[in-house]
């Protein structure tokens, strides 16, 4: 052996004669991606990912197996190499019938790892569950109470019978962990950078939390008397007791986040002053102005905005609503308003909604509960005029509607039935049809709707040091978890900005099973286990107070519910070489979407579950079994695209011999092999 010198990616590297390019690269700290190579076995050259191009050499070379020659100049990053590697990865991903993450997690706007925390809950490990949730946001208990849980809508368990009760599980774990020894993140050493977060709602708290953890000096400026934003002032107590918000806010404060309340920007302090005294500013002011009803008489006394109405209750000075109340709108705020009206003692509460129940954006459960509490829904009606008497609301004239053609959202649009009206006598009209942003005091660029413009990948406004997230930006008001998701990502971006180079958020590439019908067919074979029903206090009882309506499940039931999880996501996501490579460069496997190779899941190898659908035929399991374990239990069967790996001869005695080894599963670069017990 003698020393040779080669240049890899512009770096001079010393190696030994006889060594491969990959070996020399690795020894010199240069990363060349590979999927099928492992030092423990002979080179194989299947994946075509480790390709390099050599100066003056006509063909691309597989670095895993090509022995370097002195003086070579090679690169793993030439356009030709990147193209060939891109196609290799696209081909692999186009044939990879597996989910990196469960649809729950992919659907969650904050990307919460639902599968992981549900699994922790199934073991009764709430502390771990909270740790997992707090990787994405610091308010598990609060969000667990209020989240409309888009995760559950996508939960694959629905193809067995019903989705997992993910939101309730989160709430339960969050509450449990608040009881004692609450999980706390590690806070990095002070960076000396100062960040202002304007708005102490879910988005602001989340941004502050993550930036604080990263070692920055964070101050939240909030206009209201207490932190929590809409969680505190927009959600009624019976859904989210404020003690829960308090506890979680305190956890954040305890990390060292400065929290200033009753400070309204533009009134108590100027935006400019905040900018001057901080290295970066995040605007998370939400959307706190109620939209108006949009008919004659909308400004009459007795007509109030939904969130203004709810806020009054929380602040301890509920408005006098009289006996008959009409709420206009079909969302969750409308539900909060009607159910709060019931609790304030109104005798008759109407919800005026221009479409039918099917089209209502509110949670179906909320609608049912409102009906149980005596709310009357006036479907297919729309306020035509609010009629007053003595300057106060007396009556609402309702235009009767019918459903016409579907609109852009796919919902059938309501069309007035000409000349058909109804009248209802009311004392109060609550407009719960939307919220607007009030950007007064912020000298930043707004869009046509008067909402703050923020870049979708950097969350930056038109001002270099000012970022904006949540309801106050772009599309306006949405659900809390969406605002939180932005805040989480923005915290990373702001951190990178504070470190000198802004790194925009990039959605990670993940593998998603395309053939939902195949998934459904697989799941239809599962044993059924119905979803846990979270009991509520009886309507007659709960409608009289603002106390929490939920009756908690027992721990046993909670763990049982959590154990229903199908674990759609991949156990190997964190360690998967394939997905790491797939994220190394821009790829688009969709353009090559075609059939999948024939695959199935089997448990023939004693303690290893083999999911052929995720196999990339790197053959490492076969080679390791043969060359390292010396057993030779596995082999390739079939040819070309339909090749699969199978235990040789399906010989039970031979297979039994593999029991304690597990080397194949450890070598597998994807989640194709899963160790069931160890």
């Amino acid at each position: 052996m003698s020393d040779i010198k080669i240049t890899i990616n512009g770096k001079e590297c010393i190696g030994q004669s006889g060594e491969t390019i990959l070996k020399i690269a690795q020894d010199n700290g240069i990363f060349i991606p590979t999927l099928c190579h492992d030092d423990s076995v002979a080179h194989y050259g299947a994946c075509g990912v480790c390709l390099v191009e050599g100066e003056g050499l006509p063909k691309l070379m597989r670095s895993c197996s090509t022995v370097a020659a002195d003086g070579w100049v090679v690169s793993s990053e030439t356009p030709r190499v990147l193209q060939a590697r891109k196609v290799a990865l696209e081909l692999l991903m186009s044939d990879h019938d597996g989910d990196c993450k469960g649809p729950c997690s992919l659907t969650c706007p904050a990307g919460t790892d639902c599968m992981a925390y549900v699994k922790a809950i199934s073991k009764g490990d709430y502390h771990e569950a909270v740790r997992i949730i707090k990787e994405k946001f610091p308010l598990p208990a609060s969000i667990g109470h209020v989240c409309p849980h888009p995760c559950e809508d996508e939960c694959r368990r629905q193809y067995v019978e019903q989705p997992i009760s993910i939101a309730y599980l989160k709430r339960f774990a969050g509450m449990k962990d608040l009881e004692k020894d609450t999980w706390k993140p590690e806070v990095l050493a002070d960076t000396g950078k100062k960040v202002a977060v304007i708005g102490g709602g879910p988005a602001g708290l989340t941004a502050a939390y993550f930036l604080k953890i990263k070692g920055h000096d964070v101050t939240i400026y909030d206009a209201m008397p207490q932190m929590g934003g809409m969680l505190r002032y927009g959600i009624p107590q019976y859904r989210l007791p404020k003690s829960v918000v308090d506890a979680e806010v305190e956890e954040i404060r305890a990390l060292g986040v400065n929290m200033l309340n009753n400070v309204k920007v533009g009134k108590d302090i100027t935006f400019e002053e905040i900018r001057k005294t901080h290295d970066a500013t995040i605007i998370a002011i939400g959307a706190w102005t109620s939209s108006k009803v949009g008919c004659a008489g909308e400004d009459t006394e007795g007509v109030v905005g939904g969130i203004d109405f709810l806020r009054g209750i929380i602040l301890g000075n509920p408005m006098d609503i009289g006996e008959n109340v009409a709420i206009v709108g079909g969302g969750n705020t409308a539900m909060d308003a009607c159910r709060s009206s019931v609790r304030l003692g109104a005798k008759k509460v109407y919800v005026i909604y221009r479409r039918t129940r099917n089209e209502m954006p509110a949670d179906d459960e909320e609608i049912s509960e409102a009906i149980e509490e005596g709310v009357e829904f006036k479907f297919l009606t729309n306020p035509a005029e609010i009629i007053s008497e003595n300057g106060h609301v007396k009556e609402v004239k309702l235009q009767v509607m019918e459903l016409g053609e579907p609109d852009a959202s796919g919902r059938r649009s309501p069309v007035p039935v000409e000349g058909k009206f109804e009248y209802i006598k009311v004392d109060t009209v609550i407009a719960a049809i939307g919220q607007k942003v009030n950007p007064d005091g912020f000298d930043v660029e707004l869009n046509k709707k008067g909402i703050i413009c923020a870049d979708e990948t950097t969350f930056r406004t038109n001002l270099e040091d000012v970022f904006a997230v949540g309801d106050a930006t772009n599309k306006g008001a949405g659900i809390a978890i969406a605002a939180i998701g932005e805040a989480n990502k923005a915290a990373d971006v702001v951190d990178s900005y504070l470190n000198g180079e802004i790194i925009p958020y990039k959605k990670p590439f993940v593998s998603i099973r395309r053939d939902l019908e195949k998934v459904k067919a697989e799941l239809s074979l599962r044993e059924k286990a119905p979803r846990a029903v979270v009991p509520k206090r009886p309507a007659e009882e709960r409608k009289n107070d603002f106390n929490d309506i939920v009756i908690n499940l027992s721990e046993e039931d909670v763990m049982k519910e959590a154990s229903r999880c199908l674990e759609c996501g991949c156990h190997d996501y964190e360690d998967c070489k394939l997905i790491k490579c797939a994220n190394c460069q821009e790829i688009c496997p969709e353009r090559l979407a075609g059939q999948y190779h024939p695959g199935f899941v089997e448990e023939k190898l004693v303690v290893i579950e083999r999911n052929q659908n995720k196999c990339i035929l790197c053959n490492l399991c076969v080679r390791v079994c043969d060359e390292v374990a010396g057993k030779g239990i596995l082999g390739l069967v079939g040819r070309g695209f339909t090749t699969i790996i199978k235990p040789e001869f399906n010989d039970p005695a031979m297979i039994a011999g593999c029991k304690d080894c597990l080397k194949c599963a450890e070598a597998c670069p994807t989640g194709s092999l899963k160790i069931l017990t160890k």
Partner: protein
Amino acid sequence: MRVIVGQGSCGIAAGAGKVYNALEKLMNDQDSFKLGITGCIGMCFLEPIVDIYEGEDLKARLVHVSENDADAIVNAVRNNDIASLSGLFIKDEDKSFLDQQTRIALRNCGIIDPTDINSYKARDGYKALEKVLKMTPEEVIEEVKTSGIGGRGGAGFPTWFKWNAARSSKGEEKYLICNADEGDPGAFMDRAVIESDPHNLIEGMLIGAYAIGAKEAIVYVRAEYPLAIIRLDNAIKQAKEAGLIGENILGSGFSCNIRYMAGAGAFVCGEETALIESLEGKRGMPRLKPPFPAVAGYKMKPSNINNVETFANIAWIINNGGEAFAAMGTEGSKGTKVFAVTGKVVRGGLVEIPMGQTLRHVIFDIAGGIRDGKQIKAVQMGGPSGGCIPERLLDTVIDYKALSATGAIMGSGGMVVMDENTCMVGMAKFFLDFTSKESCGKCVHCRIGTRRMLEILTNIVEGKGKEGDIELLEELCLSIKDGALCGLGQTAPNPVLTTIKYFRDEYEAHIKEHKCPSKECRDLLSYVINPDKCKGCTLCARKCPVQAISGETKQPHTIDQSKCIRCGQCIQGCKFDAISIE
């Protein structure tokens, strides 16, 4: 006189076995003439063929002979009245098929009895071996170098160089391997050589083994060639008995054993490293090169692999001198090349000609042009690894470089001629279907890449092609060429690349207009009844298997396109030429 029945696989398939049996039955002890067999003369289009010899003179060549002709043949021979068989004589224009060839590798094919070593010996058989055993291995390699012969398996890599590399490799144990895993659809050159002249192959291999210093030589022959295996097995036995294989051959001190192994029919095993894996009893999957087989091949020992046709030329080169071989051909491509000409030509079969002649010469002068008066569209060279060459480039000469410049390759000798009715997209799909199925499954680019290409091509011929498909195919082609592990994958895109290069308009017509210009892609055709010609005879309606045709008797009928399955029954049945394909 001798009556010789051509008994290659092609002849037997056409009925030569029955002819032979009929002749044998009719013969009796008094007959002075002999009945014998020979291999394949290479004129597939005339099989079964019976040759009548007087001594070594070919008195008559009878073609398209059936067992019913046996009586007449026996009588004619008995009565020495060959002229009475004139109705079976080969036509002069068909004779020209052979007359225009220069046969070296095929020199004995269709002439000698492949089952008889003496028949081979009578035509200078094993003279070259005798000569070689008196030369040094270096001298042999030098002679081969002088000949300029390149590997006939397709790549044309200089044979002497490989021999020399194997000879120079360190180690006592070396192997010589013959690649007889002829897998290209439409190629049958090697089969013809083994079936018709197996001793020629054995002699070439012995010379090669002597040159590189191998004591063991192995023929890797595909199991789908049962007759070739029988004849090879027989020839090896005969050569062993004659002291030409085994210890101390012809008292020279050189020892070499030859055996064969039947491959189980994977195309990829024609790739030399996959072939070696298969020989070793493993799954036929390519190895990475380097190390090349000359350094670490079979059993990781120095090995040399040549194709059947390469070996079939060696004895001739030794007997006639390398210079005589090099005198034929072009600057870069010496000697002759055998082609299996198939497809839409008038005369299909084996053609051996000196390098340097044009494709047009082969297709039009030798093979007689296109059948049924149609126009030639293109010729596919080199099977699934090759490419198509359009009509306008038919004056390209047969030369490794010149053919590669078109995007096709010389290949092992498959030459599939296509006429105006051949859809080039469908052709590319056919080959991708082949290569994707024959991919060993090892490397990603080939295993999944060829599959995806096939899916895209299938969509195109089914009228489901999308804007951008051509560009995507081109991108995949180039990346697969760059990324695939072995020759199979690296060349698999060639049929697609060349058809796109020369017939892009056909791809576009499929994708943009949902039309197949060659009217071959079933999903893009519509059968239409011309109301002016239709007499309302109802025949087509009755023939239609899916009741897609309706109409009143004696009134023009119509075809419901939504029901039509484009089977063509109606068009075949119509007596009034009223149905056309659009």
